[in-house]
């Protein structure tokens, strides 16, 4: 590269969003998603590590949120207690959306006296697909 050549534009690393029901979850501060096909290695008598055994596809994850003065934005507790299945959409930078079908496994609430009330949801389910995949 020459001394006066224009440097390539710096890429931006925008934030991801999580959406449930009819819109983005504004209170969510961070989330984690694990997709798995539960693969394990297959050893044969004549050949070790000869293949793979693929298990069922599954997804699991969690997200943390902080509750503002208007209250929890979705009825996580109701969904947990009534074993409701929900669709969760993880909007990734670049326009890709991971579509997940899930149910809540646990909801944690944390209310310190000197800070905002926070919560955490743990969920299990499966990935139904990904839109906008290149």
């Amino acid at each position: 590269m020459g001394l006066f050549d224009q440097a390539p534009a710096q890429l931006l690393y925008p934030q991801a969003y999580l959406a449930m029901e009819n819109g983005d979850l504004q209170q969510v501060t961070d989330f984690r998603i694990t997709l798995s096909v539960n693969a394990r290695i297959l050893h044969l008598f004549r050949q070790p590590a000869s293949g793979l055994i693929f298990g069922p596809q599954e997804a699991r994850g969690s997200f943390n949120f902080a509750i503002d003065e208007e209250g929890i934005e979705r009825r996580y507790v109701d969904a947990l207690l009534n074993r409701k299945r929900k669709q969760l959409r993880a909007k990734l930078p670049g326009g890709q959306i991971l579509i997940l079908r899930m149910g809540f496994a646990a909801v944690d609430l944390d209310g310190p006296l000197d800070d905002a009330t926070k919560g955490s949801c743990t969920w299990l389910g499966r990935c139904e697909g990904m839109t906008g995949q290149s």
Partner: protein
Amino acid sequence: MANNDPGVTPELDLFEKSPIARWIAGPYDVKFPVQSIREQGGNRIVEHKRPFREGAKLDDTGGEPFIWTVTAVFNNTIDEDLGNSEPLYPNVLNRLIEALASVHETGNLHLPTRSAVRARPKTWDRTEDPESRDHATLVITFIEDNEDAVTRTALKEPAVAAQMNNLATQAAFTAASQGSFALADLQEAAENLQNLMQAPGRVIDDITRAAERVKNICKRTLQVLETENQRLSAFVSAPQRSELARQLYAIFDLASAAPYQKNAARGIPPRIYIVPGDTDIYTLASTLKIDPDVILDLNFIADPLYIRAGTKLRIPIGSGNAAAA
């Protein structure tokens, strides 16, 4: 661990060099990937118990058939090259089950641990579960078939007197044609045993000794054969399946039967009699009401005129008095 022979490096991973598992029966020839193999065998032991004697006298009436339990797996990610032109799951799996179910005859089972054996499939158990996608496990139980032709003549025990020499000659011929052993001493021992069996009124101990000699030669030769086979082809060969080994086993069995056949020819099987006090053959014969020649035929007695107390003698069953053990 200390290795006493520094010149020998153990061969690594013999499993990888073992043959591919294969089932050949009727029109089917299916190669399949094996995960594990289990082999079961045993001896048919008959227990004879009698009152006031601890334990049991055991008779070994032969070996149980070998049973192999093979766990095969079918999964299209397997890259072991089996030479099949169609996918393992479900095509090869279905074809193997069809071969197991539709052919009702003895087939050739190639096992990685045993090479080829003659066997029949007894049961199979196919499992597919949701935790393993597009994957099946098939557990097959095969039983070895000795393909014995059960006819009237097969059930009749072969006569030592008629066959011993013949078999030894055949074994010597097989050994010579394989270039492995010269079995002249076996032929000589077998001929000696056959002569003893044919001679009238010979001492049973002579026959037992001659039979032991034949058996020892067979045992020695089989040991050499086994060591040689192991050296040549690791663990994939089964020495008991060679023609020479089979002939040697047959001679061994026949020699084991020799003393009993000689007794059987007398019409009365003997039992053991413990001499209660010092005696001589004539006194003993008159006490037991048996011909002295019969006692001498059945036993090796160093000095017939002085038989010590406690000497164990074979006497025909039904003879003797209450002192008989």
